[in-house]
Structures are given as structure tokens and as C-alpha cells.
């Protein structure tokens, strides 16, 4: 069954999924790519700080903290 598309912000803590799309300008896409956040990658949300704080995710066994605004632009299909 196809699950709904969601963003990193909306994902539950501990939930995993596959990166589908990065909706941002070239600069943002480049920086995210450089850290290994690329469409098709497995991604797990580790935590999120309160009040629109950064989201921490795990990609390829590395943890990355992503500001709220950026995290909103990362679309994921949850497993």
C-alpha cells in the first residue's frame, strides 16, 4: 500500500522513510546533497527540538541536524 508523502518535519520521531524530493533552490539542494541527503536515500528521524527547532536525522549511519525551514522542504515517503 502506498503511504502518503510527508516532510521531515511531519515525520514521527524514530520513523524511517525514503527521501523523495528536495524542494529548494540549487544552493540548498547542493548543500543537502553534500551531506548525503539525496532522493532515494533511506532516512530516519532521530529527534526534533521544540518550537520549530532543528530536526536531527540519520542517513548512512551519520547524524545530521537540519534547520526547521530546510527540513520542511525535504519530502519523504515513510516506510
Amino acid at each position, binding site marked *: 500500500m502506498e503511504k502518503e508523502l510527508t516532510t521531515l518535519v511531519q515525520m514521527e520521531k524514530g520513523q524511517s522513510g525514503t527521501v523523495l524530493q528536495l524542494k529548494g533552490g540549487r544552493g540548498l539542494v*547542493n548543500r543537502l546533497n553534500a551531506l548525503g541527503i539525496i532522493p532515494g536515500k533511506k532516512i530516519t528521524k532521530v529527534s526534533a*527540538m521544540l518550537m520549530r527547532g532543528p530536526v536531527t536525522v540519520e542517513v548512512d549511519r551519520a547524524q545530521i541536524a537540519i534547520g526547521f525551514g530546510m527540513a520542511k522542504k525535504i519530502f519523504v515517503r515513510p516506510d
Partner: protein
Amino acid sequence: MTKILLMGNPNVGKSAVFSRLTGVKALVSNYPGTTVSYTRGQMKLGEETAEVIDVPGTYTLEPTSQAEEIALEMLEGGDIVVNVVNATNLERNLYLTLQLLEKGIPIVVALNIWDDTKHLGIDIDIDKLRQRLGVPVIPTVAVTGQGIKELVEAIPHAVSPQLTPTSSSKRWAKVGKIVEEVQRIRHRHHTWRERLADASVRPITGGIIAALVLAAALVLVRFISEGLINYALDPLFNNLWAPVLMKLSPLMGGEGFLHNIVIGQLVGGEIDFVQSFGLLTSGLYVPFAMVLPYIISFYFVLGLMEDTGYLPRLAVLMDNVMHRLGLHGYAIIPTLLGLGCNVPAVLSTRILESKRERFITATLISIAVPCAALQAMIIGLVGEQGIQYVIMVYGTLFIVWIILGFILNRTVRGFSPELLIEIPPYRLPPWRTLFQKLWMRTYGFLVEAIPIILGAVAAINILYYFGVFDAVANFMAPVVTGLLGLPKEAVSAIAIGFLRKDVALGMLAPLGLSAGQLVVGSVVLAMFFPCIATFVVFLRELGVLNMLKAAGIMLASALIVGGILNLIL
């Protein structure tokens, strides 16, 4: 001379490899962005001597920060690249490797942090990786030195397969294929270290951990420095050095020009290491017995935080607060460095992406973040009047930091980018690099600060003797006495603050100030202008215009805050 560049992603251990190759000590920590400028060293390559350059970490050759731009510039002038790769994260690291392979420069790959692959359940087929990349691949553990000999032997065999440049998505696809072929991951359970890592970036547990870490850091800094002062340095000065000087004093006539410079003023017929202010009295006591203990204890504790990998987690926790100041969480790292010395702190603002962020961070550091030397004097001098006054100084500076950041965020044009950082795994600090780093920083203080301190003390005495300070003091008196409520002699201290703030605060000691005046003096000294070393770095890093802007903000805020404090206290 052959130029060897050490390149790789941030926090893969380039500086550790560099230290091993060259014997030159480089700062090694566990967070991305430890190296913001480059360090040079030399190594033997067969018969020849080669130059080795430790380049700041970069994720790609399309730069996203100033440190990365430097890395790219350096690549132009290199002959061989030792590409340091984090073996526990091949996927991301190999992207840069492939980019380098397209550049036509000979390459050796050092597969660093190799020891961690075992307990992380990662198996890498090195032969296959070597074959796929077409360059030598050597597994290394730079902090212990494992594999370094093999790496040195492999450097002359560096080759360039000269891949055809391709698009970023094709490159990523290629990385994916290589990793699939050479790497096997075994399933394993979460370790306690990983659990602690996850807890550190969750709102509630993270907050508790941060509070515990910072409280422990404070206690440890105090414990070590007080211990050094009370059990080693004070007894040394009081029991051994003072008697020598008391013999020397009458030999020099007990007073006069030379006596003033060398020994200073006797207080009640005795030497007072804080107040006498001669080269051999305060000139030695201030740097060695008041400041040095804090330098050692601060940098030891900072080193622990750097090497365990805690700092980036603190950045995540602080991100929300820092955004109100126009910064993102990572700016907490230069700020913490500033508590040691403002010079490397301003330099390390290079890890921030935008000019605006760098300006705000550097300005806030030079105004509201007192360096360890100044702090040692604040604790030593103001602390005598009672701990509440020390808290007043720190509290005021903290409030200034917040309010000024808030104002700068509203007024400085541009926007601040968002946080995007890699969080390294927790590691036990490698003691060798921890103590090596502590020694480097302490040594840096000794060779850079002590000559200036002695020079300042000598200059002060000479200027006093010829009455130069009195003339300046009379000129500036209306501001200092009228607005700040300090005696006009304090003018000279504020002027000396440009050279060394620790000496400057020391100059307030013989003036017999009230506790409130000491608080005002400390705060004004901290805020009004950076010391000359910080000034030079600020100027170089951010340009004349920004420095002028910052200087205006400094003077204005120092006078306003000093004036307000004077009214309250």
C-alpha cells in the same frame, strides 16, 4: 618541493593524519570545522623533503562556506592529494573522492577511522575499493598511528585515473554502486554511546544533559585552576619568589625609576604581587599565577568537550535561542572558543556560511565574551569582594550578548541561513591528542601573551613616571569619572586594555576601588574595545568597514552599559 595536500570531508581526521605525517602539531577535535585555515608541515618522501598542507574539510568541490573556498583554492597549487576518507561513512566521503579523481591530480586514499568499522559492523573490501577507484587505498587509524607507515610508502605511488567530469547525480549514482560492491553492513544493536547521542539532541533529555555538562565544565574549570593557584603557584610565589625580591629591593635603592620598573611600588614595605606592578612582581605573577591556571583548566575542559563530540549537539540545542540573535546554533562554537581567547574565536567564525553571521558572531564575541585571561583577573580581583560581584559582571555581559544580538539581528541587513551540520558520534577523547592540544594552546599563550604582558608593564611604569598617563587621564576624566564613576587613573587602565586586558584589570587593583566600581571597570574593560591581537584578526577577517562598524558599537555599548551600571551600583 612536492606539495602534498590533505583533503577530505570535515571531521574525518585530516589534522590527525597531518600530525602523524609531519610531526607538526595540529589542533584535532571531534567536530566539523576544527581547521579553518591551513597548516603547513614537512615530511620525508624518500630522499626528498615534501611540503604537507592540512586543508580545511570540504564535502564537495562546489564550496558552501569560506573554509571550503580556501580548500578549493589550495587544490590549484597541489601536486599530490592524500584524500582522507571516513571509513564509517563511505557513501558520503567517496563523492568528494570521485570529484578529486576527475581533477587529474595524483591521489592516495587514507581510509581513516578504520578501527571504528569493526564495532560498527561494517566490512569494507579494500582490494575491491582500490580496484574500483584506481588509486592506492590504505586503512589508517590516525589517532593511534596505525597504517601511517603504509600511507607514507603509498604516497609516491599516487596516481590520477583522470575520470571524465560528470553531473552530480551521476556521480552520486556511481558512489552508490561502488559502495554496494565493496561494503557489507552487519546488523547490530544500539550501543549506550549511541543512545546517549540520541538523548543529547532530544528537547528534554538534551536540555538536562546540556545543563549537567555545562555545570560539570564550570566546576572542573574552577577545581583545576583553584588547585593550581592554591597548591602550586601561590606557594611558589609567596614562599620562594617574594623573599628573593625582598633581598633585591634594597639593592635597587628601594625606590626610583629602575626600582619602579623592575619591582614596582612596595605596599606597606612588602611586595604585593597584585598591586606592586613591577616587571618581576606583577609582571610575572599576573600571567603565571593568575591567568595561566585558568588557561590550562579552561582549555583542558574545552578539549574534553571538543574531543567527545559534544559541541555540535550543544549547537543543535541552542539553535532556537541563537536564531533570535541572528545566528544559528553552530555560532555557539566560536563563542565558546572566545571564552578562551577571542583571537581563534574570531578566526573560527569561518565555519559560518554568511558574512552577516560572521559579523554578528565576531562583534558579539569581542564585546560580550571575556577571554580566559580577563576572566581569571575578574575572578581574582572582583572575586575578593564577594562572589555576587563576579556574578554581576558575567550576568551583565550575558545580558549584553543577548540584547545586542537581538538588536544586530534586527538591524544588520541580510538573513541568516539555517543550521545544517553533521553530528559526529560520541568518542572517548584520545588522551594523547587532548594533552597535545592543551600544550599547544598553553604554549601559544606563553609565547604570545607573556612578552606583551611584560612589555605592557614596563611601558605603564615608564609612562607613569613621566606623567604621560596623568595628561591623558585629565583629558578623558569627564567621561570616565562623570559617566562611569571611576577615578581618573582608570583611564590609563582602559588605554592599556588595548594591549592586554588582564594587565589592564590588574592596573585597577592598586586604585582602591569599591566593589561596584570594580564591576563597572571589569564590564567596561571587557566591552569597550578588543585587545590588539583580536583587533588585527577581526580587521583581516571582516575588513575595515566591518571593523569600524563593530568599533562604533563597542564604544557606544560600553559607555551605555557602564553608565547604567554606575547609576545602579
